[in-house]
């Protein structure tokens, strides 16, 4: 077998791992993002009674007023989202994969590629869910309240209003920013390389040090770029088609 077909075979295998991480991340983070979104929009105020007119004066009164407006679910969720969005994904991958081993003395992850994939997939899902949650929030808040009110006045249930009226308008709104994130995800999967997850870049780089009997080859690493280009091109086309489908209304 020639060098080329050996390299392509190895890169294909690496790219399969890339695809696996990509699809698991999307499948997990799209619904988890909605959950996080609901959490950050949660309006539960357990202490709202403390704001009553007969609250004491002075520092206690002020404390009562602050406490009365506290939305713990929303606050905690937003804090979590801030942490995840405010730190590099690469760092998060290192922490989730190596952190428990350092703290507990032994790694809880299964050995080999299975463990690396599991750790990477979990971190990617959480990370992207946080980004998606913010996009969803914008999408939900962007649908005018008048839409909901028009539905209510026509005697529709909250459920009917969500599914028949607001959902599609939301989807239309979030599609462009979601497309951006998805394209970013295509390339971000390479960050899993940091915990030696054997995705396509890892496979390409291996030919420099020695792989399948070849070493000192630089071009396989460069060639991985073609995989990313083709894949992101396909995704862009598909998402563009979806956006076009929703072009019939404003």
């Amino acid at each position, binding site marked *: 077998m020639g060098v080329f077909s050996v390299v392509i075979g190895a890169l294909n295998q690496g790219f399969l791992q890339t695809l696996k991480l990509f699809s698991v991340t999307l499948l997990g983070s799209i619904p988890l993002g909605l959950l996080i979104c609901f959490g950050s929009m949660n309006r539960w105020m357990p202490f709202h009674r403390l704001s009553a007119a007969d609250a004491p004066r002075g520092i206690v009164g002020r404390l009562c007023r602050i406490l009365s407006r506290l939305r713990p679910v929303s606050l905690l969720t937003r804090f979590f989202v801030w942490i995840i969005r405010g730190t590099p994904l690469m760092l998060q991958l290192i922490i989730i994969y190596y952190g428990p081993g350092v703290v507990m003395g032994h790694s809880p992850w299964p050995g080999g590629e299975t463990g690396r994939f599991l750790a990477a997939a979990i971190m990617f899902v959480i990370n992207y869910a946080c980004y998606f949650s913010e996009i969803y929030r914008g999408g939900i808040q962007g649908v005018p309240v008048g839409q909901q009110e028009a539905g209510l006045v*026509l005697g529709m249930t909250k459920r009917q209003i969500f599914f028949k009226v607001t959902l599609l308008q939301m989807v239309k709104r979030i599609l462009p920013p979601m497309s951006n994130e998805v394209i970013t995800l295509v390339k971000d999967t390479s960050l899993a390389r940091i915990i030696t997850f054997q995705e396509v870049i890892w496979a390409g780089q291996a030919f420099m040090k020695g792989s399948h009997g070849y070493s000192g080859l630089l071009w396989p690493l460069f060639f991985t770029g073609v995989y990313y280009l083709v894949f992101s091109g396909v995704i862009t086309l598909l998402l563009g088609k979806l956006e076009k489908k929703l072009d*019939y209304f404003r």
Partner: protein
Amino acid sequence: MALLEVRSIEKHFGPTKVLKDISFSLEEGRALAIIGSSGSGKTTLLRCLNFLETPDRGSITVRGETLFDAGDRASFSEEAIRQKRLHFGLVFQSFNLFPQYTALENVVLAGKLREKDRTQWPTLEKQGMELLDRMGLADRSGHYPHQLSGGQQQRVAIARALALHPDILCFDEPTSALDPELTGEVLKVIRSLADQDTTMIIVTHEMAFARDVADEVIFMDGGLIVEQGPARQVIETPQEERTRQFLSRY
């Protein structure tokens, strides 16, 4: 017996009292215009009638049936309200058509969601077409809202509200969001509804229209009914100083 009986409605948002002891009644087939300066509580009153706001005090009775009584918490449940609000229809200042549906779909959507028996749907569509025809929009039934002018959109919204056969149709400044040259076509439609003895409550700043089309006029100021009576009398020979001041601006 009056068709609609509103007794001592009060509503406040936080510390500000927006409606203070509103009482009036309306006979079947009559048109009532509500006038008053900005912030006097006209929109809030219509929203209370349509259960988009919950009054803090008072009661609302239609055909002798008490739909709402602030003293009776059982009348607050979402399901109870959903059935009762169908006694009222509401046409919004900003139309609030559903953008992803055609004019006809907008008109029949709520009816279809209520009608589980699909064999009845063609009948609903036929009625929807008839309504659009009455609005002078027969040739626009397949257009999406963004393909219609403001005046056309508002007429679709009127057809949509009529489709559920409300006892009382409410309008909140139906022409305020329209270019001056488009108000005429909407006012004409409302005038023809009045001629067909549709029971209506119209919040409007069009004094000439209120005088000519409405049977009665209520002038509101600061959350109170200052003056009410036959339309021509209130607008041409107001008894109260505040009414006179307000009308002198027109």
